[in-house]
């Protein structure tokens, strides 16, 4: 089969690999019909995540058709059209039994601080991902779900990470009716977080980024008020000014490890890997939220230390909430929202790359060229 393969920082290519095999009785092998490149894939691509090995296949957002199932699989059969959450989880450990699927304890030998994620380095378990023609899906009775017939492939693939993560980020904010919510980052997760904030009853939703085309999308897709931080000497002061000098009730960090806006932070973290991530957005969140407010973090950071302004968070009495999204827990409600037309995930898709052109896909997404917001990867070139 053909699969995307990491060749070192900023380099990927397509190689022939063996089709994955059933390695556990509850495994399934899924033939991938559509995958996506996630903003967090760029942290791997840029060499920021420790234990990212040459030869690994990335991709934790994908859907496909069941090709083969292991002997203990009861809920799926060959031919089923399935969407697969980015979390790999057993469904039975202490954490899964409490709904914390993203914190599963039975799927990641390499680290206890994070669960299992497809194609996301050995730090997240060493599983190959779905930017390929086939992928091994562990715990087939627990993770994947059959896609409802009415749901399009593009909507379904966005329900495997970006859309539920944004929706989860808004929930972590504990938004109350009329709250002012600021979202840092107008990428896919930020757009869904902003849109979801209205569903929670926000009175005002503000999105901050430095890419004008993404801010335009935040206005049209998420009906948000927007600010380009590059236009302000100090975006925190500006946010205070527009929130009656109290600060926002809730701030969502949907940027993560490669945040721009402070040259020193960005270069030391994203370029020279001296921090686990550039905490610019997180520090702005801490500074721009009101005292006693909530900061929700769904942007991804590496496991190495970052220079976070923790003292301000303490002095302001903030609630800091964060986690990788337990995707499957969000699906029943999200499917209602999609069916009712409240959320239209596929509207953020801007590019479709055939698998053989995936290196261009990574570069275009990474360099933010051509108005790229969400690139999809199509294994069957005739459908790209």
């Amino acid at each position, binding site marked *: 089969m053909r699969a995307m393969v990491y060749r070192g920082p900023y*380099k990927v290519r397509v*190689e022939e690999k063996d089709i994955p095999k059933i*390695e*556990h*009785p509850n495994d399934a092998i899924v033939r991938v019909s559509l995958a996506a490149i996630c903003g967090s894939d760029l942290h791997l691509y840029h060499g920021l995540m420790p*234990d*990212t*090995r040459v*030869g690994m296949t990335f991709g934790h957002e994908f859907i496909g058709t069941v090709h083969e199932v292991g002997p*203990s699989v009861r809920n799926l059969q060959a031919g089923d059209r399935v969407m697969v959450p980015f979390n790999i989880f*057993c*469904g*039975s450990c202490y954490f*899964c039994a409490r*709904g914390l699927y993203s914190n599963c304890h039975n799927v990641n*030998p*390499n680290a206890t601080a994070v669960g*299992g994620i497809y194609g996301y380095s*050995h*730090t997240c378990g*060493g599983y*190959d991902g779905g930017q390929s023609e086939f992928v091994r899906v*562990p715990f087939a*009775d*627990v993770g994947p779900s059959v896609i409802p017939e009415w749901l399009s492939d593009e909507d379904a693939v966005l329900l495997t990470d970006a859309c539920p993560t944004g929706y*989860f980020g808004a*929930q*972590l904010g*504990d938004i109350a009716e009329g709250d*002012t919510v600021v979202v840092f980052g107008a990428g896919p997760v930020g757009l869904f977080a902003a849109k979801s904030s*209205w*569903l929670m*009853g926000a*009175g*005002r939703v503000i999105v901050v980024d*430095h890419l004008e085309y993404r801010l335009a999308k935040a206005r049209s897709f998420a*009906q948000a008020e927007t600010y380009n931080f590059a*236009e302000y000497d100090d975006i925190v002061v500006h946010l205070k000014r527009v929130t009656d*000098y*109290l600060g926002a009730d809730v701030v969502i960090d949907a940027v993560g490890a490669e945040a721009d806006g402070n*040259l020193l932070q*960005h*270069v030391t973290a994203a*370029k020279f890997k001296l921090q686990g991530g550039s905490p610019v957005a997180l520090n702005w969140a801490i500074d721009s939220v009101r005292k006693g407010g909530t900061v929700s973090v769904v942007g991804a950071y590496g*496991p*190495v230390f970052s220079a976070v302004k923790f003292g301000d968070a303490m002095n302001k009495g903030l609630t800091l909430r964060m986690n990788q999204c*337990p995707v499957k*827990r969000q699906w*029943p409600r999200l499917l209602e*929202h999609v069916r*009712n037309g*409240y959320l239209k995930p596929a509207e953020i898709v801007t590019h479709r790359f055939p698998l053989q052109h995936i290196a*261009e896909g*990574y570069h275009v997404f990474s*360099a*933010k*060229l*051509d*108005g*790229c917001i969400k690139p999809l990867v199509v294994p069957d070139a005739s459908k790209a």
Partner: protein
Amino acid sequence: MPYTADKHQRRESSEELRDRIPGWGADLDPKDRPAVPRERTDLETGAHWDFPDRQPEKWPRERSVEHQFLPPVFGTSTPPRGVSGALRKYAYKYSEGRAAHWLILLAADRVDACGSHLRSFLTAHPDNPVTETGVLSEYTHHGISSRFGKKRADLSHLWLDPLIVAGPWLLAGWLAAAKLKKLRQRRTS
């Protein structure tokens, strides 16, 4: 607004927002939010085991010392190999709480990348930095017009990217050329 006990001034009422934004307030009640409360024990996961069957361990699988035992299911992509593999195995002697663990793993990643590039030149499919970086998409996807005149904050460090991507290749080329030159000088003398 003076610093009184009032909340933010609302720009739009809830009714206005409900009219303007489809779905506004659909999850206003926390009971409708699937992530609330954070921990729930009433969810059906599909698991039909108390503890999963164990996947065969085909090579000594590196694992965090913070685990009591090897978890039953794990990824089998890219087993550790060579110098980078030895570094990785060494890194796993340290817990996740130690900087040494992560910094050695990052160092192993760089050794892995260098070694893999060198090994690729002995194969029929050598690394090609032009195709593998996707840099040609700069021409096909408006590299210049996407960046300039757009108030992008990342322009301030744009110059670093070619150095980070091409720098190691140029350095390796220069070192190889210098070595060759030295060898030639030795032969001629």
